[in-house]
């Protein structure tokens, strides 16, 4: 299967192209499915989708290796509230009835294996999921998952990090369809003090030698200022923990989404 045939790839590409045409980096908010509860999540997602170029929905998982405490706690809360793997896909299906914005699911591999890779892709395709972000799947671990995703019209995003060697960057960049995700720091997700982007430009430059898919940068983007700094370097800006913190603290999510989306203007 080639990327060209993939519905998700085309839709994600269009979203990035559209943002660029408007002088922005694509704004990609993240929210854990079923957080803070299964009933409150849809309205929260609506608020984010009002600003998003792409929405990243986290599939809550019991043992998230790449996430910091904020997203981990959100996952625990969502699971405790009964959010399941199939339930997460259903939530996307529901959002799809109201929104045309591309939606990607961030998931660790175990839920995919447990449901069965083919079944997982089939369900995702039917629900209108556009792509997958796989934080614990280096692309050379399992080629079947990417193939099955492509077969079902889904884009696949793998990650690179500041520790990635040039060979790894090449391998990952070439495996990505949809967009490539560059992790800004060595570390887990989470808003942190003084995000340093020192290593990002070199990483992006290397990646761009091997792929023409858009590159989004995430991990640690917490306010309009950091979003803007990232927007000047990358094609997209991912913001996760900052939104979960805002929900947790009862702050105004639409206002934060507006601020961060404005930060993505170049």
């Amino acid at each position, binding site marked *: 299967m080639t990327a060209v045939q993939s519905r998700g790839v085309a839709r994600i590409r269009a979203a990035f192209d559209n943002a660029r045409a408007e002088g922005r980096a694509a704004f990609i908010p993240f929210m854990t499915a079923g957080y803070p509860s299964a009933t409150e999540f849809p309205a929260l997602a609506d608020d984010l989708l009002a600003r998003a170029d792409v929405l990243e929905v986290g599939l809550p998982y019991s043992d998230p*290796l790449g996430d910091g405490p904020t997203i981990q706690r959100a996952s625990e809360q969502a699971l405790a509230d009964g959010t399941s793997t199939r339930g997460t896909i259903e939530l996307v299906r529901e959002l799809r009835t109201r929104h045309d914005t591309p939606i990607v699911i961030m998931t660790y591999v175990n*839920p995919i294996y*447990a449901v069965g890779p083919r079944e997982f892709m089939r369900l995702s395709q039917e629900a209108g999921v556009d792509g997958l972000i796989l934080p614990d799947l280096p692309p050379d671990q399992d080629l079947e998952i990417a193939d099955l995703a492509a077969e079902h019209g889904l884009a696949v995003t793998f990650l690179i990090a500041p520790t990635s060697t040039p060979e790894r960057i090449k391998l990952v960049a070439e495996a990505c369809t949809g967009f490539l995700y560059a992790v800004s720091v060595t570390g887990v997700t989470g808003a942190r003090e003084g995000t340093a982007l020192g290593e990002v430009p070199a990483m992006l430059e290397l990646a761009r030698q091997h792929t023409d898919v858009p590159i989004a940068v995430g991990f640690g983007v917490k306010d309009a200022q950091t979003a803007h700094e990232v927007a000047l370097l990358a094609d997209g800006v991912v913001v996760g923990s900052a939104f979960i913190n805002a929900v947790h603290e009862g702050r105004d999510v639409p206002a934060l989404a507006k601020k961060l989306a404005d930060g993505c203007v170049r």
Partner: protein
Amino acid sequence: MTLTLPSYPQPDERGRFGRFGGRYVPETLIPALDNLDAAYREAKTDPAFLNELERLLREFVGRPSGLYLAERLTRHAGGAKIYLKREDQNYTGAHKINNCLAQALLAKRMGKRRVIAETGAGQHGVASATAAALLGLDCVVYMGVEDMRRQELNVFRMRLLGAEVIPVTSGTSTLKDATNEAIRDWVTNVRDTFYILGSVVGPHPYPAMVRDFQSVIGEETKWQLGELEGREVPDVIIACVGGGSNAIGIFAPYAYLPEGQRPRLIGTEAAGEGVDTGRHAASVAGGRIGVLHGAMMYLLHDHEGQITPPHSISAGLDYPGIGPEHCLYSETGVAEYVPVTDAQALEGLQLLTRLEGIIPALESAHAIYHAVQLAPSMSPDQIIVVNLSGRGDKDVAEVMRLLAKVEDAPGNAERQEVRA
């Protein structure tokens, strides 16, 4: 130099034991795993490294550990001779120190100043803290708060040794969550930190490297049994399995012998309150293939891939997965894995204590129990070797609590009785 590290035909170049194993981790760690793999390959044949490891295993750990014929236990069981491989004689009280010293030496060789570890029973944490103190490294140990409660003494030992013990409250607050936390720390501090992993789990090369470092157990057993019985290969080897490092340490040197020359290899899994109760940690008997902590293995998880909380009386076996090499052994019939319950382990512990004057770790007690079950079906000229992975000092407070409960229960007086 006398020490050599073994070379086994598994895993393949990609770190797979058949379909098991691999490296399902954030990309951030892949270069570090490549570096570790390269450094380990180099160290494995470097006389300077091997000499130092050999010296420490001998002078610091007290190796070789004994291979001891448990005569009264043998008589009690009535059948095959039961030998105990005495990893409980090791300094710090368990097999964990073999691997920790080796990994800490490797850390030092790689120029890392900071080591991190996860621990369940605390034995791996104590061993890591000990190795760090010995070699002058900073040490941070992650431990679930539930395990900190069960293993208070080991928490104190680690702190006394200068390690920082970080309580983990996420998930089930046990070993799996401590492991998540250690991996997250490693993702964050990968450039200057060495992760001393405590069992034959995790991403490649850990399952292979930890196995190689623990193989000293089986290698010693070979020549010791040769001296004592005139044959290197027993009929049966039994070892408890959490992640599976003590078991692989005694199995692997025998597992790749041709069929027919291989002893029966039996791993005892923690069946907790019973495999059918759902309150257990038996990943082969009660699990399905999945991915956790970077490797594909038999795993306790629900139909949508959420890890289900394991349960065992012993913190060291309270883990929802089992090392990928064991999964391959199980699939190919090289080894068998049998469930042993909490109550049976407690029985095994009391039996060995009263008959031989050896208080085993609750983990090891699972293997003891099964040996006593199996021996009567065998003949007196046959030999069972039980890997006594550790001593029970760490468990006595918990056992005291548990036995008080048992004794309070009506009609239970006779269960305490042991005849020899």
